[in-house]
């Protein structure tokens, strides 16, 4: 840990060293045939773990995805399924 600066200020976005992906029990997986690029999953993810790809589809950031399942539950096209994480 770096030495404490006056008042103990922290740098912006520094939680990104904490990879919360390890919390997952289920992992979300896309079925790109069903996805209509509505962006709802990207909007809803509480962990900012839905990343846009160059082709406009999305991919999961498994470093941080906690596997909450909101994206899968809300996807209007059923394009996301939750599969048991194999550890």
């Amino acid at each position, binding site marked *: 840990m770096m030495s404490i600066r006056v008042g103990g200020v922290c740098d*912006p*976005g520094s939680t990104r060293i904490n990879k919360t992906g390890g919390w997952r029990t289920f992992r979300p997986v896309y079925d790109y045939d069903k996805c209509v690029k509505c962006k709802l999953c990207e909007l*809803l993810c509480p962990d900012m773990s839905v990343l846009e790809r160059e082709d406009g589809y999305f991919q999961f950031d498994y470093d941080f995805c906690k596997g*909450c399942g909101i994206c899968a539950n809300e996807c209007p096209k059923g394009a996301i399924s939750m599969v048991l994480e194999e550890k």
Partner: protein
Amino acid sequence: MNFLFKSGHRGCAGCCDAMVAKFTLMAAGENCIVVSPTGCLEVMTTPYPESAWGVPWIHSLFENAASVASGIEAALKAMGKDDTKVVAIGGDGGTIDIGMRAISGAFERGHDITYVCIDNEAYMNTGVQRSGATPYDASTTTSPAGAISFGNKRPKKDMPAIMAAHGAPYIATTSLGYPKDMIKKIKKAIDVEGPTYIHAHAPCTTGWGFDSSKTVEVAKLAVQTGLWPLYEMENGEITSVKKIGKQKKPVEDYLKMQRRFKHLFTKEGGDEELKKIQAIADENIVKFGLE
């Protein structure tokens, strides 16, 4: 999209506080300063030396976020930097209970700030104790259902009305069930000059007892049953409501998804209680013209 609220925070999977924070920063943009009171959001986003905030952010105490925001606004004004927006965002406890004096003072003084209350209907950070925002009959750790109790005995404190009585130029209720509506309203609140208030209904997977994937679904049901009406108030007048019309659902649909209301379906006398809760929803529907 590059979100200003960052990954790596310690919120539970499916955390409502994280979602409201994310949406608030989407609405606020980079040129803002954010204040949070003590609570889940604060603890989970800033374990020293880390921070999930991509904007300048400060936490002082549990009951003073609105006062801290006042001071930031005044300082920015004094130093000629008042293009920077000031946003407070914190829990129902820190806002409508222990923070009441502070928010009342800040709104009465007319500071140009936006306050976003994340209403997850209890003190989650300390283990799901009852707050003034806990709904009727919810079982919490300090208002537990038991042999002679159906849980919390009082209805929710009507905070938006209290803020309206302060003469706030813009107030809106929002819900995690309607994220785009939430972002739009927060943005509007920030753009309106003067003290503006957003009350965000935010189902907590851990405290309410539902699967982490259901945060948005549960939130939607609160709106669709009439238990959480969505409206905007400008200068004390209601200027828009979200009609529920054909979508209207019985309160059971909402309540049965949550562990905190389980006793209503298992305990003798629960039927009568459900009727009382339905009556609360029906009153809202009439009062706000939701149909």
